[in-house]
């Protein structure tokens, strides 16, 4: 029983990071119908940025994170700007274009920061909490809290602000949105910037949890994307639920199948998606002939 709960907690805290990654995927997807395969690599850049400001420039962790979010937001703008000609045209090509961006980002990080990566000490040095023999790291609680806050803020932005409402409209029907005077290009750019900033947030938080290296984007990206799809692609609560689900699935697979955990995780994921392509919260899209 103790193993069960400890595994669950480990899965949930890693899942919170996947959830943040998934959130960025979903936000970009719902607004512009684009799957950004380079998202994981943007997370990696964010992690490097944040750790550089935190470790080298000795800035407070929160400030380092905010600066990292701003910088990666800029990368988001660049990616969006370059791929704009393909928006709403060729979905698959755009997807492949983002894969190309991911490859470039990973190589750039290797050039700038080296291939071996770095360890980031935890900014929350407090000892783990002990609940009936189950240890909960304080830093995990911080990650969970920030993930929850980010989701809440994002929901508020989308539902309560004019700009957010405009993005919602673009998500539903970009042609109609154009017709009522919404600047679709700007809306898409904001989605991309927000997505990239979320990626940086995830990267910054994951640094002290794991280890920052140029290849970290691959796994985080794939698992985060899987989480977004599992939750229902394009759904904000779905991204959170899906991300955490993948984290927990991963954790239990590692516990039960040890070396074969990856095999099991992806097989289970495949089966779930084939059974229910729309995920947990997904809307069934009506295909009009």
């Amino acid at each position: 029983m103790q193993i069960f709960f400890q595994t669950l907690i480990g899965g949930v805290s890693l899942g919170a990071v996947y959830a943040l990654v998934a959130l960025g995927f979903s936000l970009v997807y719902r607004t512009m119908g684009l799957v950004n395969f380079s998202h994981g690599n943007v997370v990696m850049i964010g992690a490097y940025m944040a750790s550089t400001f935190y470790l080298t420039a000795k800035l407070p962790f929160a400030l380092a994170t905010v600066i990292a979010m701003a910088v990666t937001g800029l990368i988001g703008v660049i990616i969006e700007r370059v791929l704009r000609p393909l928006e709403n045209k060729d979905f698959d090509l755009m997807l492949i274009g983002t894969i190309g961006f991911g490859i470039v980002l990973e190589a750039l990080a290797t050039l700038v920061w080296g291939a071996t990566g770095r360890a980031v000490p935890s900014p929350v040095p407090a000892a783990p909490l002990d609940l009936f023999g189950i240890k909960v790291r304080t830093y995990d609680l911080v990650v969970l809290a920030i993930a929850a806050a980010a989701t809440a803020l994002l929901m508020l932005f989308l539902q309560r602000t004019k700009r957010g409402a405009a993005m919602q409209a673009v998500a539903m029907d970009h042609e109609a949105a154009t017709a009522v005077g919404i600047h679709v290009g700007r809306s898409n750019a904001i989605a991309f910037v927000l997505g990239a900033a979320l990626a940086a947030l995830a990267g910054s938080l994951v640094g002290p949890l794991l280890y920052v290296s140029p290849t970290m984007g691959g796994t985080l990206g794939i698992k985060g994307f899987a989480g977004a799809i599992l939750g229902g692609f394009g759904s904000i609560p779905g991204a959170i639920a899906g991300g955490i689900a993948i984290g927990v699935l991963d954790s239990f697979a590692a516990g039960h199948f040890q070396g074969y955990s990856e095999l099991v995780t992806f097989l289970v994921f495949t089966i779930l998606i084939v059974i229910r392509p729309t995920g947990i919260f997904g809307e069934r899209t009506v295909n009009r002939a």
Partner: protein
Amino acid sequence: MSRTSLSRTLWSRFAVTAAAALLAVAGCSAPGADKDSTGKNSSGPIKIAIIDAQSGQLSSLGAWELKGAKLAVEEWNKAGGISGRQIQLDVFDDQGDPTVGTNLARKIASEGYIAMIGTAESAVTIAMAPILQQNQIPNIASGQSPGMVALKSPFLFLNGPTSTTYDETLAKYIVETKGVKNIAMITNNGSYGKGEHDAFTKALAARSITPVADQVVTTDQKDFSAALTTIRQKNPQIIFLGAEEVESGLIVKQARDLGITATFAGAAPQGTPVFRDTAGVTAVEGTLVSTPYMSNDLNDKTKAFAAAYKAAYNEDAELHGAKAYDGAQILLNALKSSNVATGKALADAIRATKRDGLLGSFAYDGTGVGIFATTIGTITGGKLVPAS
């Protein structure tokens, strides 16, 4: 779109037929048969290749190896080379990928290199070995997997002990010196982790001990809660780590967060600063490390090496550089004693070379291993010191 696809298809078929006809004509004279495939010269510089990961996650190992080997070669070149010939050390990047390694093995064979230093990755070395053997190129490798020995290639030599030695020494210290029997294991499924797992399990079995927990993780796993909680329940005194630097660091960090206070034990990766920094200095305190190269201050030889290393690269020497330095010295000595022989003669000369090196005394046996001893150190205050 005036092209008609069918005619294209027809013509492709035609091409096949034509090719088949040519085969019949040219069948008897094979290309490349008359070429000198070795290209080994007896004048000009002596060409030695160093193949290691210079990019990718394992590139730090590759960088250390290169520095160590280069130091040895420069020493010899400054002293006038071998038989009046300078030594040319060329570096190739295997990216840590065995397939790239096989390509490079063919490349150095076709470009006339007479010997090879590297790689630090057992899987890459194993992949390259058959090609090097076929082309009779002696290879001094830096991996430690017993799998390399199992190949029985007369052209493959190790510049350090195998996992068997590392783990035998470690098990002996833990079980016999310290009297600890309550031991858990956590290893990964990569080539290094698998080798460590098998060697340490064997060493324990020889002492009739079964580990209380035997957890296997993947090489890119991030969360070890399940494995570590299982281990925690068994409450072991010592946890054996069989994983590379970063992953070992993560495991130790998470273990401490989960309230595991047991001592960790491992081999080469656990002696590195990367491991220490990933886990944190306090977390790794007391970790037992089985290593053939305890520190730069061990004796006069290591001190001289460390000083030269510092002078050349402005950084502190460590195990992998020292191993590569020893390996390169052995090769260069063999070249000298054999008067720059190549192929089998050079391999035999290496086998006959005895060296009192940084890691200890080398004397190769038939399996290509020249040194069979490691010592145990503990990490104290972030530094590796000899264990009491």
